């Protein structure tokens, strides 16, 4: 599968990554090379082979729905780019 400029634009938007227009062509070529490597998988018939999600086939462990962590809002917000009155600030979303 070879990707073109429009594909990269679409993927970059899905990934919320700004890509400079000048870099599009080079990125499309690099990604296409990687896909070429990846597509060696297609030479193998995997009909009837179960996908392996966990190396040890374990099931997800669940814990009781109880509060286990203490409130550390101040410590966590001390490293945030912008906060006010205990809230994280972002540009206005609703006019």
């Amino acid at each position, binding site marked *: 599968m070879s990707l073109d400029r429009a594909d990269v634009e679409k993927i970059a938007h899905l990934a919320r990554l700004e890509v400079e227009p000048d870099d599009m062509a080079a990125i499309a070529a690099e*990604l296409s090379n990687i896909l070429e490597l990846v597509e060696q998988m297609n030479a193998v018939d995997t009909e009837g082979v179960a996908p392996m999600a966990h190396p040890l086939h374990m099931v997800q462990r669940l814990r009781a729905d109880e509060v286990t962590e203490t409130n550390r809002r101040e410590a966590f917000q001390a490293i945030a780019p912008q906060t006010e009155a205990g809230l*994280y600030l972002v540009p206005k979303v609703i006019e």
Partner: protein
Amino acid sequence: MHTKNISELAAGLRAGEYSSVELTRHFLERIRRLDGGLNSFISVCEDAALAMARAADERLQRGGAGPLTGIPIAHKDIFCTQGLKTSCGSRMLDNFIAPYDATVVERLKRAGAVTLGKTNMDEFAMGSSNETSFYGPVRNPWDGDAVPGGSSGGSAAAVAARLTPAATGTDTGGSIRQPAALCGVTGLKPTYGRVSRYGMIAFASSLDQGGPMTASAADAALVLQAMAGFDERDSTSAEQPVPDYGAELEHDLAGLRIGLPREYFGEGLDAAVAESVEEAVGEYRRLGAEVVDISLPNTHLAVPAYYVVAPAECSSNLARFDGVRYGHRCEDPKNLEDLYKRSRAGGFGDEVKRRILIGTYALSAGYYDAYYLKAQRIRHLISDDFKHAFDRVDVIMGPTTPGTAFRIGERTDDPVSMYLSDIYTIAANLAGLPGISIPVAPVDGKPVGLQIIGNYFAEARLLNVAHKYQQVTDWHTKAPEGYL
């Protein structure tokens, strides 16, 4: 002091030959004097280290000290360390002071180990040469023009140059074993789930695993002992008892069955590296092991499947870096979408972006079955290859890497050729198996690694097999010129 192993250092502390403060100062001084040319550390925490060393000295006096009490260690900068910068090698986290300790860090602290600092690494552990770090490449102490390998390149170089007796690393596709091989140190990737991932910044969650990097297998056993064990804060942590890793080190190897996969000795393997590995296998024959030819027929599919699974999981894990709660934020965002897009574009380097894009594509509507699901099926085939092999043999041996350390800059323009340097290490991650790399006879003055892969939770066996070799050879005691 820097030429002693951890047990010897611990004995020296107990005998009062030196204090932990003196030992810590010795390594801090070496870092100051020697790391300028290597760049193996991103941050060094002198004050915190000396405070920990003083506490260790008290504990050594008072009683209750363990084998790591007062022993200096460095952490790969992927492990969160409370109050210390934790950058993950990225501009995105250049301003990130971790608000908590990773379980691995917490456990090693509890054992009394002294944190010297945080080691350099490929950005978000994505790389095989340490060249993708925001903080610049690390140089291989054996050859300043060569890479140390990656992604745990800083840890490997620091241990090789004897700037620290031990370091932590993480391994998603070979990131402990490959740099261990290229720098001539011992590096162990445990079974998936053996060491907690809590506080270890996630790259590909179904593959990531932390482990020790040291000068010898006996040292690795001591560090793993402190790192390993069930952690309820990691949902994929294995609920398996932790054996005494030191207890089996001396077990006799007579009758050990070693499998040599023919796929690991084929095209692409440097002839001199092959010879060095075969010589090491010969040493095992002399130790009484039996060597058997085996086949892992789906080996060639490991790299392709990995470059779907790892980027897919990376694209999902790295979605958390949004410029809102921590990390890099762009200047003057126009709106929320602009904030996300430009913060991420400015915070991530090229290789990380490449993997996010590939992963996003592989998971996008209409492609999931063809890529991610297909790769997970292939993962099953690879895992079955190992299962069949372990019906016949106790351990699998081969080269850790196809060649010795390559030149800085040599592969940066060709991501695919870089990816192929992990051709022998990736399969163990896909299957979740433990693997260790130990130094064997060098080629042209550059280290060569022997990889030993074991069955699930067979870390004690791997350490035993590695240790017995290190008792009859001295490659692991060699340090590069200028660092002894």
